């Protein structure tokens, strides 16, 4: 295939030929091409289909505003839908496929929609598909969904990696066109730390697309010279292929750097893209302007494009959509585009300008006072119809038409913090709002300075303003001379006519649709947008919105600013989900915390379970055990009959010190702590201020002014935060300090009748841990294994004689191995979280399932613990009627009448003959387990008036499991209700 539409010159490297395919067909292009320019060089004008009518479409623009030329790039698990051909840098072996068409791009079955377009007007779907009722979900919607969307996902995991990073600077310059380059240079020469970012692969902006803008120096030389100086400075960071997509609070910007998208695959170890969070003190927005089309009948034919884009394709990429082209413009810039094209060797047949007094700038025929009324060539432009100033129509044969309806400053980022852009009549366009994001200034075309000199002058001035804001003394720069004539434009939005004239190309919104919306009362801009889907396509209406607004203004008889503008939101251009997520995916989604015994447990073949951020051993299967229950039952029985050991390091530990430590804990816990003697531990219940149970645990008094508070695993962070709140915000003068020591201590529960026997072999000889010397709830600092400092607590979660032994974390691994070694003769059994759960359910200890954020102390059977003799957090509001209602929920045990039946946690409690309706619901099962000691499934439940109903029979109903069993309400303490074992 030859590149028939390739011109001379351009910024491409003809020595590097690149092969690529589009819809399976092979083509060639050059290094420096985009997919769009390379297709154009090969005379491929048809590149896509529109969303609704499946109209054949070609390239409209030359940058990220492109609405039409969307392709699926690459294949397999790197397939990337909706990728703009205009921003894809060509690489060797590139594969692209057209989308939203079947069976082929040239012949698309759903283009039938175009024939039915009179039926498919704006919002038609709100008015139909309602009869018969069932058909919406069975027929109509499935049909609509089948046609939905543009490109396809591969449905495979993305193989590439994405990074995230932070950057900091004094001045962030967004966009590296003339104004951005000069702004960066001004700031950099003055010593500010500067980041200059541009979405393009090359810096220079319109200087790459237009002919010479300055006197005495070529565009290329000026760009090279400026960039060279910037690149040589240590205080400057240049980011190409980087889109600053959002302006967030306090000078934080989001930016996406496409590190590897111009390569076939990323280099080994390199990310595909990086999401930068740029923290800037000042920012200068130099994002340029986007040209807008003029709507006329069939203005969406492949080959019709923006005049500035045609100019860019000729100058930068040396391609043209056709040998003969015309220009349709309402402003002088369109004429300059024509002149550039002529110089590049393109035959410009005519410049058509609706202005009667249009200036003659290009050396070709000028049709002043004329307008394009129609275009022919379904799959590629063949000719246009021009209505001359005298009313006569004239067909003109062309392969390309460049259209310019003026330029819209790219104000998006200036409005990300809800600023509203202002209408600027000389340009017939919106410019940045008066209320800019803090620290942001706009310059160049983005601020409405469309002349060459105006752009650079405003660029340097914006930098001076930013420097002033930073208190940095500015070094002025010399500005090159450039044209600075006032902009001449006549607002001209659409050519009157009966046919369909497109405003939003991708979503197929036409002038008629806007008029219909107005007719039906959808006149506010937001209504217009939502009713017609204007501006909601992947290009966010960059080329469409202002035109549609103008049409609405025209039909309502209001001015454009009165009609309004929609709000701009990030991102400026769409950002891949992978980039937003960075490395926090898969197994790295959240950090994983391992317990001190983890490695040892792995060696034992333990099964692990996720508990918040932690991984904990769930059970320890032994050879021959085929079902998890076998392992768990064995572990439970071992604890009840011998001795077991369990890593409980994950429980939160908070070290509380200070003269007022006891007074402080008296505030934190609803029960009393002031009189707890040194060397003793007490169970404590913490309430939230609303009187609902927050957490429970123990506090051990190691010294007069030192407590160790334990929390549940889940609430470790929240309880610590709460305690700091109570101290710093409520009782700032209490002499108390606290720190979380969860990570500092490895802690093991050693439980079972033989636990003391084991511990006596572990603690050093001089320490008395006999029942008398170290009774139930005792605590103290001890030494083990010849002098290793440790803390010992005689507390029991299982209900057995039990201890918790804590050592500095670095000894945690050694301690578990030591315990297992020493305990071998006693048959020591490691147990996991499952057995731990069974043991505590058998004992009736509440955990998170019961302390679920809705239960009061009263509900949990601990109402009497709430001291009324002192102030504690939650004590006042825990007295509210619903929290202390004797008819309310109370914690009970559940045992099936038939012990082969299974209690399901989450089952609801009903009386025998009650209908299973919400009003008869008595409560629910919070926890359930199989108790090998009772040879029965058992549970804990919160049941209305439960405490008064012990012994009664109820039903545990779980319709989602088709389960309904008879069960007895019993005491929650299934094992050793008198507590003899733990005191033994």
């Amino acid at each position, binding site marked *: 295939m030859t590149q028939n539409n390739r011109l001379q010159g351009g910024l491409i490297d003809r020595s590097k030929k690149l092969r690529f395919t589009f819809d399976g067909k092979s083509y060639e292009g050059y290094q420096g091409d985009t997919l769009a320019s390379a297709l154009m060089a090969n005379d491929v004008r048809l590149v896509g289909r529109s969303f609704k009518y499946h109209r054949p479409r070609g390239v409209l623009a030359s940058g990220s505003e492109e609405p039409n030329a969307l392709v699926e790039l690459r294949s397999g698990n*790197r397939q990337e*839908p*909706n990728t703009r051909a205009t921003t894809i840098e060509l690489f060797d072996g590139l594969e692209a496929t057209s989308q939203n068409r079947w069976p082929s791009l040239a012949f698309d079955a759903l283009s039938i929609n175009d024939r039915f377009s009179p*039926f498919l007007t704006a919002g038609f*779907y*709100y*008015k139909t*598909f309602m*009869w018969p009722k069932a058909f*919406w*979900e069975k027929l109509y*919607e499935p049909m*609509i969904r089948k046609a*939905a*969307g*543009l*490109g*396809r*996902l591969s449905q495979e*995991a*993305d193989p590439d990696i994405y990074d995230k990073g932070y950057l900091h600077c004094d001045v962030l310059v967004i966009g590296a066109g003339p104004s951005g380059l000069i702004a960066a240079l001004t700031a950099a020469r003055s010593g500010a730390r500067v980041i200059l970012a541009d979405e393009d692969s090359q810096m220079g902006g319109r200087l790459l697309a237009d002919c010479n803008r300055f006197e005495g120096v070529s565009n290329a030389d000026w760009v090279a010279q400026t960039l060279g100086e910037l690149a040589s400075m240590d205080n400057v960071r240049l980011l190409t292929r980087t889109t600053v997509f*959002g302006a*967030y*609070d306090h000078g934080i910007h989001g930016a996406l750097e496409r590190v590897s998208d111009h390569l076939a695959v990323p280099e080994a170890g390199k990310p595909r893209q990086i999401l930068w969070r740029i923290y800037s003190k000042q920012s200068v927005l130099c994002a340029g302007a986007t040209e807008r089309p003029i709507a006329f009948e069939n203005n969406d034919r492949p080959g019709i494009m923006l005049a500035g884009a045609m100019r860019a394709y000729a100058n930068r990429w040396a391609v043209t959509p056709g040998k003969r082209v015309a220009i349709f413009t309402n402003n002088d810039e369109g004429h300059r585009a024509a002149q550039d094209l002529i110089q590049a060797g393109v035959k410009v047949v005519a410049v058509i300008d609706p202005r009667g007094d249009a200036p003659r700038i290009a050396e070709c025929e000028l049709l002043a006072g004329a307008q394009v009324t129609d275009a022919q060539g379904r799959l590629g432009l063949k000719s246009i119809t021009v209505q001359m100033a005298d009313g006569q129509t004239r067909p003109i044969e062309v392969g390309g038409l460049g259209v310019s309806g003026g330029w819209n400053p790219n104000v998006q980022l200036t409005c990300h913090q*809800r600023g509203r852009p202002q209408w600027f009549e000389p340009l017939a366009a919106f410019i940045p709002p008066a209320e800019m994001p803090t620290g942001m200034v706009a310059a160049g075309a983005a601020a409405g300075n469309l002349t060459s000199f105006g752009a650079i002058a405003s660029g340097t001035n914006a930098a001076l303003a930013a420097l002033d804001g930073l208190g940095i003394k500015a070094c002025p720069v010399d500005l090159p001379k450039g044209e600075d004539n006032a902009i001449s434009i006549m607002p001209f939005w659409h050519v009157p006519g009966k046919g369909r004239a497109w405003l939003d190309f991708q979503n197929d919104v036409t002038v*008629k649709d806007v008029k*219909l919306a107005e007719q*039906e009362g959808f006149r506010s801009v*937001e*209504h217009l947008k939502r*009713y017609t889907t204007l501006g909601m396509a992947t290009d966010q209406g960059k080329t469409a919105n202002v035109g549609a607004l103008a049409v609405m203004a025209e039909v309502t008889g209001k001015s454009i600013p009165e009609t309004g503008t929609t709000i701009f939101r990030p*991102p400026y251009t*769409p*950002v891949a*989900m992978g980039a*937003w*997520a*960075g490395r*926090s995916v898969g*197994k790295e989604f*959240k950090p994983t915390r391992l317990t001190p015994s983890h490695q040892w447990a792995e060696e034992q073949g333990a099964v692990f*379970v996720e508990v918040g951020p932690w991984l904990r051993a769930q059970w320890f299967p032994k050879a021959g055990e085929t079902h998890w229950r076998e392992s768990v039952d064995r572990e439970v029985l071992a604890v009840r009959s011998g001795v077991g050991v369990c890593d409980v390091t994950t429980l939160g530990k908070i070290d509380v010190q200070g003269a007022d430590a006891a007074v402080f804990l008296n505030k934190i816990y609803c029960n009393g702590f002031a009189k707890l003697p040194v060397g003793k531990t007490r169970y404590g219940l913490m309430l*939230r*201020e*609303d*009187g*609902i149970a*927050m957490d429970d645990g123990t506090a051990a008094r190691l010294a007069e002014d030192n407590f160790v508070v334990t929390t549940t695993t889940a609430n470790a962070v929240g309880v610590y935060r709460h305690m700091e709140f109570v101290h710093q915000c409520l009782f700032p003068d209490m002499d108390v300090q606290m720190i979380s020591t969860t990570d500092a201590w490895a802690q093991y529960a050693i439980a079972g009748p033989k636990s003391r026997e084991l511990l006596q072999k572990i603690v050093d000889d001089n320490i008395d841990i006999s029942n008398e010397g170290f009774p139930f709830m005792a605590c103290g600092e001890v030494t083990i294994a010849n002098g290793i400092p440790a803390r010992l607590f005689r507390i029991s979660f299982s209900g057995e004689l039990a201890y918790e032994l804590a050592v500095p974390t670095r000894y945690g691994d050694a301690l578990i191995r030591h315990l297992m070694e020493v305990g071998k003769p006693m048959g020591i059994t490691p147990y996991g979280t499952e057995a731990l759960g069974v043991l505590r359910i058998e004992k009736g200890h509440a955990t998170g*399932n019961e302390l679920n*954020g809705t239960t009061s102390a009263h509900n949990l059977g601990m109402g009497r613990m709430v001291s009324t003799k002192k102030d504690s957090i939650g004590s006042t*509001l825990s007295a509210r009627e*619903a929290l202390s209602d004797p008819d309310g929920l109370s914690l009970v045990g559940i045992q099936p009448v038939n012990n082969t039946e299974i209690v*399901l946690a*989450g089952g*609801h409690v009903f009386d025998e003959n009650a209908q299973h309706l*919400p009003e008869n*619901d008595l409560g629910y099962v919070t926890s*359930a387990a199989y108790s090998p000691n009772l040879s029965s499934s058992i549970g804990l439940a919160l049941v209305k008036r439960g405490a008064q109903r012990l012994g009664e029979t109820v039903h545990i109903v779980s*319709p*989602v499991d088709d389960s309904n069993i008879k069960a007895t309400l019993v005491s929650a303490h299934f094992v050793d209700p008198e507590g003899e074992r733990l005191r033994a």
Partner: protein
Amino acid sequence: MRYSALAIMRQVLNGHRGWTPAWRDPEPQSNYDFIVIGGGGHGLATAYYLASEHKAARVAVLEKGWIGGGNVGRNTTIIRANYMLDGNQPFYELSLKLWENLEQDLNYNAMVSQRGILNLCHTDAQRDAYRRRGNAMMFTGSGAELLDTEGVRAMYPYLNFDDARFPIKGGLLHRRGGTARHDGVAWGYARAADQRGVDIIQNCEVKGFRIENGKVLGVETTRGYIGAKKVGVAVAGSSGRVMAQAGMRLPIESHVLQAFVSEGLKPVLDGVITYGAGHFYVSQSDKGGLVFGGDIDGYNTYAQRGNLPVVEDVAEGGMSLMPMIGRARLLRMWGGVMDMSMDGSPFIDRTGIDGLFFNGGWCYGGFKATPASGFCFAHLMATERPHEVATAFRLDRFKTGRMIDEKGMGAQPNLH
């Protein structure tokens, strides 16, 4: 004009000249029987049901901007009745029933689509909680199915089953849940209310209440004073500001919730999925965009915009659950101001002022409630008695301790 395929056909022949405005643009009258402040989904639904169910003739909706411009126009379009607590679930079941007949009631296609909602669970405790919830749903006839891992895999094989930090252990499937076209809901109610004589008055901001002897007489607006026998307030994120004009402090904070949509993609996701191990839920619209959201930003705000950390958090959840979306692009994000209440549940109640009623505190869940909220608020305003499924939504419930706290997070609105 009645909407139908036939009507469209007639208009095609007529060059679409016969379409009339979907609702009138009336001047406010000097007084009404009922004024509903807030032209969002709830306000418009209230007006519609006042007219349709209670035959109220003189009803006005006052909207400070354009109707449907608040949270009904910026949400993730999910409808469901998958609550757990008695105070909530029967209400949401009523809402779901109203959704199911909405198009026929309103003669407007709001595209109610019950393609199912799947809540994923990742721990045993979460599954137990889903069982409790699923059962509560069964008791109201809302329907629920508890799935195991294989059941989830059969529905959505492309989820991350093999390389997950928090493996999928199952899920709670609510087949009657789904989505509706959010703008269509607002417009459908507006059009149907208008046809029943309701005056929908846009660009009419309420600046104060006229209250005498503990009774509301009317409202001061940017378009003058308008008298009313009864005034209902349904202004979501602006609840605090509006009710302050009546001298009331509320158990509500305003927070921003961001939501997101991807570029249009060929359909891959039929129903709604919520991730149980991160802040992420997703559905795919009839246009092809993946619509997704996560947690609120977490600080008080009236700015309809959020910040980067939440976007990243949501994307991390999304990518961890659905690694195939890495190359899909996030197209648009927006923020809505949520009236976050102290227990995460709403209010439909009288106030201390005679004739003044309050509807608010919907947190981020107001959209699905729209029909029942309007229905019950209209019932309350018309009869002075709460509707039987909305008796728990009282403003004084914190005095008695009868909170309706689904998440169990207590009096901290940003945690609900």
